[in-house]
C-alpha cells in the first residue's frame, strides 16, 4: 500500500473528503519526520517505535573494490516493531 491508497482508505473509512484525508496523512507523517529531524524518538503503542542512532566517523571499505573510504559521522532512524503488530504480522503468515 502506498500513501495515496492509504489516503483513499482513510477518506472512505472516516467518510471525509480525499483532500482532508490527505492533509491528515501529511500532518501525521510530517510531525513524525520533524520529531526525528530534531533527534527525538517516537513511540506509538501497538505499532512501534523509532529512535535516531548517531554514528561516529569510521573507515569503511567499498565492498566491491576493497578500497578504503572514510565514512562521515551520520544519524540514522531505526524502527522497532511493537509487540502487538509483530505478533499479528507473524500470525498471518500462511
Amino acid at each position, binding site marked *: *500500500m*502506498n*500513501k495515496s491508497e*492509504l489516503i483513499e*482508505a*482513510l477518506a472512505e*473509512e*472516516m467518510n471525509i473528503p480525499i483532500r*482532508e484525508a490527505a*492533509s*491528515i*496523512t501529511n*500532518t*501525521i*507523517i510530517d*510531525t*513524525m*519526520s520533524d*520529531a*526525528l*529531524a*530534531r*533527534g*527525538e*524518538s*517516537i*513511540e*506509538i*503503542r*501497538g*505499532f*512501534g517505535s*523509532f529512535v*535516531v542512532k548517531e554514528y561516529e566517523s569510521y573507515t569503511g571499505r567499498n565492498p566491491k573494490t576493497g578500497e578504503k573510504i572514510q565514512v562521515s*559521522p*551520520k*544519524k*540514522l*532512524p*531505526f*524502527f522497532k*516493531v511493537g509487540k502487538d*503488530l*509483530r505478533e*499479528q*504480522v*507473524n500470525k*498471518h*503468515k500462511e
Partner: protein
Amino acid sequence: MTLTKADLVQQIYKTHPTLTKSQSTESVETFLMLSKSSLINGQDLLLSGFGKFNIKDKKSRRGRNPQTGSELILDARRVVTFKPSGILRSRINANR
C-alpha cells in the same frame, strides 16, 4: 523528548479547525489501523518522503540460547523492517 500518539492527535487538532478533538483522535487511530492492516495482510507500506515498511519472511534456522549455549531451532517467522527514505535521512542529518 518522545513523540507519542497523543502528540499526533494534538497536532491534527491544532492544524484542522474543522475536526473536533474526538475526530482528531479517530483520524490518528484510523491511520494507524489502516497501516497495520496493510502489514498484517503481508503488504508492504510505502509512505513516500518518510520510508518503507517491508514484510519479510525469515526461514527457520538453527540458533543457540546465548545463556546456556544449547542449540535450538528457531521457527520460520514473518517480520517487519523499515527503510527510511532519502528525504528523511537527509532531513535528520541536515541540522548537525
